[in-house]
């Protein structure tokens, strides 16, 4: 595992970039615990200061230090991404594996359901849920809600992977040598699925972060919790663009873009590594 990461880090610039940036953000997320101010409270520092030594990114119009707020936002957005991705991963894996192994009528019914979740536009439905839940919408609930809707595409992916694994020679060998189904799934097939799960997890985190930004900007989350989305929301509420408070509005926008690009590069790098054809090319280049 570590050898793979080291190899990718050395040989793939995209992986190196993505990994470094993500590691940096994770460190920031931990450091944000030591914030000198309460990030939910308003007017803890003087308002509308330009960047200075004391406030490296300045302060905003509701009296918060932008640097510390951004750090807390990174922590919360990453956390939300992990919660929602974890939930949707569990559903996607269970649905994909069951449907792939059981087959038959069960498979057909489940796949119709899955296809519906792929086709139905989820954004308005998420808005419907968020509107009703608005008052009780904390990070965990939001994570669960987004997680419950982001599994369909990946469940299909896992299922197709299982369908092909089922037909491989080594599966038959395992069956004929008397291994129990459960054992075959966990020891023989899971190692094939794990890298795919990792790549789709990263993609899912990207989707979740984007969804959070969108919902928050509509005012549909707990607006006191600092996240990338709520930072943008407050900046827009106080007309940061017209007042040219670029340090306020651009900080979350740039963080969002950099974070998503880093995650995206990680996921493409991993999925290219998974593809035997491109892996061969990488070996040849060395």
């Amino acid at each position: 595992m570590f050898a793979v990461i080291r190899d990718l880090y050395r040989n793939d610039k995209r992986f190196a970039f993505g990994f470094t940036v993500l590691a940096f953000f994770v460190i920031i997320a931990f450091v944000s615990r030591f914030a000198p101010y309460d990030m939910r409270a308003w007017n803890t520092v003087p308002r509308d200061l330009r960047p200075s030594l004391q406030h490296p990114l300045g302060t905003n119009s509701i009296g918060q230090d932008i640097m510390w707020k951004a750090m807390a936002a990174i922590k919360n957005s990453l956390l939300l991404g992990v919660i929602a991705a974890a939930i949707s991963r569990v559903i996607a894996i269970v649905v994909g594996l069951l449907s792939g192994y059981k087959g038959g009528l069960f498979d057909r019914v489940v796949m119709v359901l899955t296809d519906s979740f792929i086709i139905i536009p989820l954004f308005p439905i998420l808005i419907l849920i968020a509107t009703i839940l608005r008052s009780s919408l904390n990070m965990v609930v939001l994570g669960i809600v987004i997680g419950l809707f982001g599994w369909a595409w990946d469940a299909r992916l896992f299922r197709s992977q299982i369908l092909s694994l089922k037909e491989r020679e080594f599966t038959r060998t395992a069956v004929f040598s008397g291994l129990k189904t459960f054992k075959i799934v966990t020891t023989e097939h899971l190692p094939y699925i794990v890298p795919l799960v990792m790549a789709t997890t990263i993609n899912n985190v990207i989707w979740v972060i984007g969804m959070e930004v969108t919902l928050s900007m509509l005012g549909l989350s707990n607006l006191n919790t600092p996240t990338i989305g709520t930072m943008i929301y407050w900046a827009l509420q106080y007309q940061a663009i017209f007042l040219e408070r670029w340090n306020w509005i651009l900080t979350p926008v740039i963080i969002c873009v950099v974070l998503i690009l880093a995650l995206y590069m990680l996921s493409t790098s991993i999925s290219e590594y998974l593809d035997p054809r491109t892996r061969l090319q990488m070996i040849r280049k060395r």
Partner: protein
Amino acid sequence: MLKKYYIPRLIQYFTVVFIGLTLVFVIPRLLPSNPVESQLSRMMAQGQYLDPAAIEQIRETLQQLYGLEGGMFQQYISYFKRLFTGDLGPSFTQFPTPVMTLIKQSLPWTVGLLLVSLTISWLIGTILGGIRVSFPHSRLARLIELVIMGVRPIPYYIVALVLLILFAFLVPVFPMAGGYSMGVKIGFNARFILSLLRHAFLPVLSMVIIEIGGWFLQMRNVASNIIEEDYVVYAEASGLPKAKIVFMYIMRNAIIPQITGFALNLGFIFGGALITEIVFAYPGMGYLLYSAILAGDYNLIMGINVFSIIGVSTAMLVVDLVYPLLDPRVRYS
């Protein structure tokens, strides 16, 4: 053909619509907070004094409006009955205008925005993807790939916001909001069309920028398999002009999965269109949705949900039904 292709598609269509509409019915009833009560508390929070009898009356009226009276199953039946007659109930903020009327007003804007941006991004993405595969050693093609793929994962909202800051505020070439200028009469005249184009430019651009990526990626993947096929090698060996090979041999065959992609991505792109409209205050369904959120107009949000589910799945059905005309393999199987 009819039995193997059309009937399963139709069954799928009805199941998707049915599941989607059921979701819209079930979600508000599963969630802990009650739309009627939150509407009431919103009214009270605005400082209106209401005596208990009046509150009770309002509660009853609201329940009737939202279709919340009677048992769960009864509600479910009457929900579908109302949908079949095209009755989505009245809008709460613009009472008593029916939700249907509001949606009808904004639907053309969304459909127009979607169609234009879809067509442009599909064309550009498909052509660029084909060219990228056909000229694997070109520096320019690689640069284009890098840019397109780098922009793809960024959320619609962020791209739209950045474009708005850049081209409507810092360099004010395009208007910040709206579908056409104030004081221009809607009609078929040069001033209106010009104003329409100017206002639609940034929303369309922001959608095209993100969507190109998907088409490009898929085209690249499909075409890179085709390029190794015998008939392409043969065409190259027999010295056909490169343009003919690229367009007639590679792209023509790679285009069919692109059309399937059209259908599958529709739901996602539709959501993107809604977000784009909200950022640019474009008077379509997205903006209607936004005003409904701000006002807590629950009926309108429900109506938009119903419409988007039916609209997207119907569009998908149409793509599926046209598909055999384009793919001879489906036609003759």
